[in-house]
Every structure is written in structure tokens, then in C-alpha cells.
């Protein structure tokens, strides 16, 4: 196999690009000295990280459901924990005036919190 055997075939590239495009970084590059702005910027950063962990927990729970290795009791407890976690996140977002999109953490050129890998 030669190194130039690369296959790339795509269709409806505009729609594909929209689907895969990266969002702008939501983390401020600098945090202004104004106390209120500092608080909001830090809150967005901290909540973005908590949201990342929450989504990872959710994905792991769904993966375990796919694998079929959760008992009824575990499904109930996991579901309840995810509901409460989501509720807490909503409360904290409201407290700092943040929307869901504010927490779509950009992870650099590879992916965003919402997205997947570059392949």
C-alpha cells in the first residue's frame, strides 16, 4: 500500500461542515479585574469542567446500560443521581446567568465538549 492511498469521499459538504465544526472557545483568554466579571469568568470555567464530568458520567452510565451489566437497583440509583446532578447544574447556571452553550468547553483544535474526534 502506498502512502498516497488516502480515500476521502464526502457529500453535502456544507451540512457536514456545520455538523462537525468547532465552536469558539468559551473560556475567556484573560479574566478582567472587575470583581463581578472575575466571578462570572471563573464560574464559567468551573461549571464547564463540572459539566464535562457530568457528561462523562452520563456516557458511562449509558455505555453500561448498553453492556447490560446494570442491576435494576443500579439503574434506578444512577438515573436518580444523574437527574439530581442535572438539577444542580441548572441551579448553578441560573445563579451565574449562564446558558447551556456557555459551557460548551472548547478543547482546542481536536474537539469540543459537544463534538468528537477529528477523523
Amino acid at each position, binding site marked *: *500500500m*502506498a*502512502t498516497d*492511498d*488516502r*480515500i*476521502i*469521499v*464526502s*457529500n*453535502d*459538504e456544507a*451540512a*457536514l461542515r*456545520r*455538523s*462537525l465544526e468547532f465552536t469558539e472557545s468559551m473560556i475567556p483568554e484573560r479574566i478582567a479585574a472587575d470583581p463581578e466579571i472575575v466571578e462570572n469568568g471563573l464560574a464559567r470555567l468551573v461549571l464547564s469542567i463540572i459539566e464535562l464530568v457530568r457528561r462523562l458520567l*452520563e456516557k458511562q*452510565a*449509558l455505555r453500561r*446500560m*448498553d453492556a447490560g451489566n446494570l442491576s*435494576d437497583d443500579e*439503574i*434506578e*440509583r*444512577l*438515573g*436518580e*443521581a*444523574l*437527574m439530581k446532578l*442535572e*438539577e444542580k447544574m441548572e441551579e448553578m447556571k441560573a445563579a451565574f446567568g449562564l446558558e447551556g452553550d456557555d459551557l460548551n468547553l472548547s478543547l482546542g483544535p481536536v474537539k469540543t465538549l*459537544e463534538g*468528537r474526534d477529528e*477523523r
Partner: protein
Amino acid sequence: MTSERHSKTQMRFALIGAHLREEDIAGVSGVEPVLLEKLTLSSIAYDPAAGLADPHVIATASRVRSELLARETFVAIRYGTSVTGPSDALEKCRQFAATWSDLLERCRGTVEMTLKIAGSRASLRPDRMAFASGRAYLEELHRSRSSSSVPPPFRDAVEKRLGEPAVRWRWVRRDDGGLELAFLALRGSLPSIREAGLELKADFPDVPFLLSGPWPLEVFADGD
């Protein structure tokens, strides 16, 4: 990865892949080998002061990866995995050695391909307020994530046209309702895969998809 060529205190090594045989990487410019039980790991040296984000390091990794893939099937190690030397590499990768070795034995001569199909809707989450039990909520969350907006005829056509050259395949759901098909194919079947992709493009002009490859083993490196 030899101390004669690089001072361990000055250089780090970015791991590129795991290979079944030492000759699979021999002679590729810039590759530093390290033995891992029955396998050989490939790596490239870089200056930690420049870092893994240095364009030259990224370009070297890309070239080496491409040349290695042209040689033979290997398991890709995610870019950014770096080690200080052979003992560090062994420490980090020893736990995967048996799995990788078995995978490379079974998949030698194949490459990984991916077909990404974009979803047509945003991710829909169930409203947690509508559920009285955790079980009902989690089951609905699972159901909503299991559904796909990809047209069934397109999926059928994909399986029909790519199923033949594919040795193994695996559908993966995307959060946006889209799908990804990862499949292993024999190297000699790449022309027919390209042809199948062009047929899909002609027959389904409104379905946004991206067929790309060949890639080293990545999706299938996670096991079944």
C-alpha cells in the same frame, strides 16, 4: 529510543503506535523503536522545550504515521502520549501488550476505515421534571441517544456496498443523531471502497457523509 542518540534528560518521545513485528518499523526515518514484550512501539523524539504542539513535531508524527501505515497494520497510540524513555514507555503500555498483540495477529493486512454521517437534529434530552423515577429517566435518556436521524435507506446502502469489502464493522452513535461506521478492510480492497463511496455520493446527494481512511487501528483497538 537509544541513549546514544538522545540524552534522556533533554529529549522526550511521542509514542506513535504498537507494531507486531520489528521489521514493520525498521528503516522509517525518525522512528525510535522500543520493545514491548512481543511487540515493538514506534516513537519520535522531540524537544520538551518546544512541546508536542510544535508544528515540526506534529508534521514529523504525521509523516511517520503515514509511512508506518503504508508498511503494515498497527495500533495507533493517541497523539500526545509521551514518555521519557524505554522504561517509561513499558510502564505505560505494558497493560495493553497482550490485547494489542492479539489484535494485531488477527488484523494483520487490514486497515481501519470510517464513514461519518452527520445527524439532522440537535441532541434531544428528556425533561427530567417529567420523570418520577431514576430508572424511567435513564431509560428514556438511553432511548433518545439510541435513535438516529440517518435515513434507513442510506444505512442499508452503506451496509450493502461497504459490507462486502469490510472484514468487520461497527456502528457508533453520535450525540447529534448521526452515525459513524468503523470497519476493517483488506488493503487490497481500497479501490473498491473508494468506488463504493463514490456510488453512495451519487445515489444519496442529500445525505452529508465523510468516508475516510485508511487509518491504523483505533476504534477496533478498544476491543469488542
